C-alpha cells in the first residue's frame, strides 16, 4: 500500500462536484482507494462516502491506494487534490 497526505485547497472542500471529480478519477484504477480523514477511512470510489466525511477547505487528508496500480492511482489522486479539485 502507498499513501500520501495532501491538503484540500479548493474553496468548497469535498462537495458534490469536487467529490464526483475525485471519484471519477480514481474509479478506473483497480486498486482500492481510500481517503483517511479525522481517523476514519472513506471509500474514495463513492461520492456519497467522500461527501459524508465533510472535508472542508484547509483540511489535510491521507490518500491510501492498495493494489496493482497503486502508485499511478496515488499520483493522479494527489495531483487532482493539489490542483484544486477542478474548482
Amino acid at each position, binding site marked *: 500500500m502507498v499513501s500520501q497526505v495532501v491538503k484540500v485547497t479548493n474553496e468548497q472542500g469535498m462537495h458534490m462536484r469536487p467529490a*464526483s471529480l475525485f471519484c471519477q478519477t480514481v474509479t478506473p484504477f483497480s486498486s482500492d482507494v481510500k481517503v483517511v480523514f479525522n481517523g476514519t477511512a472513506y471509500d474514495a470510489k*463513492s461520492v*456519497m462516502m467522500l461527501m459524508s466525511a*465533510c472535508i472542508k477547505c484547509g483540511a489535510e487528508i491521507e490518500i491510501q491506494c492498495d493494489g496493482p496500480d497503486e502508485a499511478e492511482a496515488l499520483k493522479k489522486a494527489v495531483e487532482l487534490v493539489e490542483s484544486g479539485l477542478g474548482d
Partner: protein
Amino acid sequence: MFKGIAASRGIGIGSVCVIVEHDLKFEAKKIEDIQAEKERFNKAVEEFITETTAQAEDIRKKIGPKEAEILEGHIVMISDPSMAGEMTKMIDSGQCAESAVEAVCDMFIGMFSKMDDDMMRQRASDISDVKISMLKILLGIKDIDISKVAPGTVLVAKDLTPSMTSQINKENVVGILTEVGGKTSHSAILARALEIPAVLSVPDITKLVKDKDTAIVDGTEGNVYINPEGDVLSQYILKREEFIKKQSELKGFLGKETKTLDGDTVELFCNIGTPKDAKKAIECDGEGIGLFRSEFLFMDNNHMPTEDEQFAAYKEATEIMGGKPVIIRTLDIGGDKDIPYLNMKKEENPFLGYRAVRYCLGNKDSYMIQLRAIVRASAFGKVKIMIPLVTCVDELRAVKELVEEIKKDFDEQGIAYDKDIEVGCMIETPAASLIADILAKEADFFSIGTNDLTQYTMSVDRGNADVAYLYSTFQPSVLRSIKNIIECGRKAGIPVGMCGEAAADPMLIPLLISFGLTEFSVNPVLVLTARCVISKWSKEEADKLAEKVMALDNEKEIVALLKESAKE
C-alpha cells in the same frame, strides 16, 4: 395575512394550484423472485436517470448550468456504489426495492442533516428528492405536469424539488409558496433565477389554501394574502405595477455609464470578498472593484497563504475584470477579525489596537509576501493597492517604500508588473480625515470606509446595544468628515471613492454627488439601483440639499430631510 421568508422579490397575484403530496406509503414485503425484483429496481434507476437528465437539460436551457448541476448531482448520487450498490445488496437479502431505496436514502439523510456545514446539510434535501422520485417511479405514481398549469397560477407546495422547478413555465406561474426552504434553498435560487416572486416557509400553507383561491405573493416583504379584500387586492395590483416598472427601469441602466442628471460621469464599482465574486460584479454590471477584501485568503486557511496562492487569487479577480480597475485592500485584521494561526495577542481594546496596517508594518515579512503577490497580479490588468486604517502619513510612506523595493527587485529579476500601480489610502479614522490634505499629496487615491469612520468618529461600538443609537453616518460630525475628505482629495486632484455600505444609500447619494465623490463602490446587487439614483440628481439640486443638510445641527432632522428628499 400569513408570513414567510421573502425568497424572491416581486409581487405575484393569481389563482392557487396546490401540488398535492403523494402518499408514498408502501407495504414492505419479502421478495421471492429476487432476480425479478432486481430488474424492477434497475429499470427504475434507468428511468430515474433518463427523466432527471431531461430535466437537467431543461433547466440548463431555462436557467443556467449551475442550477442544472443540482439535478446532475442526483444522477451521480443514485449511481453511486454506496447508493445503488447498497440498495441492490438489500434486495439480494430479500427486501423489496421500495424498502431498499427508503432505508439507504434515510440513512444518508440522517447522516448529512447532522453535519455542521450548511452546504452539506443541503445535500440531505437532495437525497430526499432522489428518494421521493425513485419511490414514485417504483410505485407508478405520476405527478401533475406543472408545465401545463394555466396562466396566472400561484404554485403552492410543501417543497419544490428541482425536478418540479424544471417544469415551471415563467409565462404561467406568477408566484410560489412553500412550507419549507430558506433564502439559499434550491427553490429560492431557482425562483430568483426565473424572477418569479416567492415566499417560502409559510407554515401549513398547503392546508390553508385550496385550488382556485386567489393568492397574493409578496416576495419582497414575505407576506401572503389568501382571498384578499378588495382594497388589499387593488393596493397590491398597484404595488405590482410599480415593482414591474421599477425593474424594467433598472434593467434600462444595464450597460449604461453612471451619470448624474447633468451628464457628469462617476465610477460605480463593487465590493467583493473572493475572486469568484468578481464574476458577480461583472454580471451585475459593475465598472470595477472598489474594494477587494483580501481577508478571505487568510481566514479560510490554516496557514499564512504563500505568495503564489495569493497571486493566483488576485490574478483571477483581475483577469475576470478584464482591464477594469481592481482595488485590493491589504490585510485588514485585528479588531473583530481574528485569524487563529497568526496567534495575535488578546487585547483590552482591539479596535484601538494592533490591527490592519499597524499589524502589517509590524510584520513586514508577511506583508511583503502580500504586496509582492499584488504587484505581480498588476501585470494582468489595472490593479491598485489600498491601505486600511491609515492614521498618519508615515504609514502611507512606509507602504510606498515597500512597493518601490518590490518594483526594483522585480526589475532586476525581470518579473512583469504595472509600473504605474497606484497606492491609495482608506480614510476611515478621524485622524486620517483631519490630515486628508496631507495624505492627498502622497496618496494616489482615497477610499472612504464609512463603517469604521462612523464608529471612530462617534466613538461608538455598534455591537453594543446601549450605544448603537449613536451609530449613524448621518451624524453631522461624520458628514462633515466625509465632506472634508472628498474636498481634500479633489483639491489635490486625486479620485475619492467610498466603499462602505453607505455608498449605495439613496439618502446619502445626493450629498456625495454634491461633495464631489468620484467613485461609488457597492455590493454587486445594488449596482443598478445606485446607478438609477445617481442619474436622478443634478449637481445644482444636490448642492442645494447638501447646503440645507449641513446647516442642520442634529442627526434626526438630517435623516428626516434626506428621507423626504431621497429619490429611488
